[in-house]
């Protein structure tokens, strides 16, 4: 029995990121600092969503931006802070890319689901599957050759990063978002494809450019301060 336990324990600690899992948390209540941090990151996502759809034009067209640069932010926030990332993405889209640019409350509440889906499933895939295959769920392997003495698989990390977040989840998000706006007759009947392509390209370009900068500049700092969530909640 003790041998079995030892084996399990060794497998769990195979990688320096093995303590980042899909559990609820560390069994501790949310601390005051975390409480403020989660609220602040939602506020940041709201502000950045608003800027994403206004920075390349006076106001957006129905909340769709050709450079939705908040996309990498809420993806990285999800990797750091679990479920608070997708919640921030949803609220950010409703208020920042919806109400503040005049998309209207009902369409905003509906199409914001498209921003909840990618970070949610990215978190599940990275922490539940890829972390055990040797890929860092905090994405440090995109920029670093090694993490805490463990050599990283950079090519594989980039492959999965682009495939999962830039292609699969982005396509699902685009279908949901543009589909809902199209169904609500906010996007013109024969204009689904131009807006769908705009959505996909806007998210993909932003993700590829900004994510490595954010990860390289901040992940180690956030981890050092003990602010990375071990599970979904804390």
């Amino acid at each position: 029995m003790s041998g079995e336990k030892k084996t399990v324990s060794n497998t769990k600690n195979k990688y320096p990121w093995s303590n980042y899992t899909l559990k609820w948390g560390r069994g501790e209540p949310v601390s005051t600092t975390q409480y403020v941090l989660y609220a602040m990151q939602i506020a940041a996502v709201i502000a950045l969503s608003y800027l994403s759809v206004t920075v390349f034009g006076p106001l957006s067209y129905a909340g769709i931006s050709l450079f939705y640069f908040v996309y990498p932010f809420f993806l990285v926030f999800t990797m750091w802070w679990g479920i608070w990332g997708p919640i921030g993405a949803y609220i950010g889209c409703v208020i920042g890319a919806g109400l503040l640019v005049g998309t209207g409350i009902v369409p905003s509440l509906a199409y914001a689901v498209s921003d909840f889906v990618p970070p949610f499933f990215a978190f599940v895939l990275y922490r539940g599957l890829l972390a055990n295959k040797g890929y860092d769920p905090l994405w440090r392997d995109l920029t670093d050759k090694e993490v805490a003495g463990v050599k990283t698989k950079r090519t594989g990390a980039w492959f999965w990063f682009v495939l999962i977040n830039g292609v699969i989840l982005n396509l699902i998000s685009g279908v949901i978002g543009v589909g809902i706006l199209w169904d609500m007759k906010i996007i013109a009947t024969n204009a689904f494809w131009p807006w769908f392509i705009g959505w996909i390209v806007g998210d993909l370009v932003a993700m590829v450019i900004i994510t490595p900068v954010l990860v390289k500049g901040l992940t180690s700092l956030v981890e050092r301060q003990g602010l990375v969530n071990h599970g979904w909640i804390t």
Partner: protein
Amino acid sequence: MLASSDVEARASKKYVRTFIFSMRTGTPVEKLHVITKFFMIVAMSILALYMFSIPVSQGGPDIIGLALLLLLTFVLLAIARTAKYLANSYLVLVLPVLLGQFFWWLFFNWSLPGARMLFYFWPGFLPIGVSTVVLVGVFGLVYYKTRSVVLSLVPSILLWWFTVMPGVFSFSSLFTWVRIPVGVVFSFSLPQWSATVAFSKVLGFGVLIYTSFLFLLTTRDTEIGGALKQLRLSFRKSFFVMLMFRNLNTILMDYENIRSAQIARAANVMRKNVFSRIIDLAYVSVPLVATMIRRSTEMGVALYARGFEASHGITDYKETRRFSYVDFTIIAILAAFLIYEVILGHSITSLLMR
């Protein structure tokens, strides 16, 4: 205990900060409960979406209903004393969105049923009339606001073209007073309904945009916190929502400061392509998030030091309002309007045109 001078200062406050900008206190809209305001924007949003989506086979969009809704929104904005702020800031910004809507719904809606109508890229003459008034008026208004010839030319020429394009305008003596022959005619055909549908989208989007602004310009974060407590949400949860909204402006200001710092370090000296500008934007992200994390830890410590973890029996927010008969009346009227239009399927246009 507050000193009597503080109480007087609070009572005599004429303006209070809202989500965006500030609002005048004491107006009828300011006195409404935040739940009423929320219900109002939801109801008007549903009505606008429904009115501009009525299929052509069922009589087409409810144009008069949409126009009335837009008028009601402007009246509410005027009552809330926010119309001047909107005219000064958002009016010009909203114009391209509305023009964009018109453009997309006019040209990307070719599967509409019914007869087709002739439109003109160029009618073969330079029309002098209402279209000229539109050109000069829009150019003047946008130039007055932006002081940019290019920014003023784009919407004014586009709007001018929209008034020249339909044959009913350019060939009508009421709209076109003088015709100066220039070039040859270039025409194309579109479904007859496309212009009506496009116009209804402009009105509907106007309702969606301005009702959103009505809510954001007349609502305070503390009102939302108070309403959430009235809905029996715990203090921790309602304070979390308030923290979120309170820090929105701070983060926008941080972004502006970091951008200004970049510019001060000569980020804008060289003319850059779009790709370089995007990379510039990426470099804003690190200090922005770092500032956010630093502020969060400081605020967390401050809250902890003030006994946040042990808080109980918290006093209600001063801004918390009770539901009044005015709130109930507004909700009842809007609910009746929703039932009449959306559930029973009536339309104001068909009611008045009968």
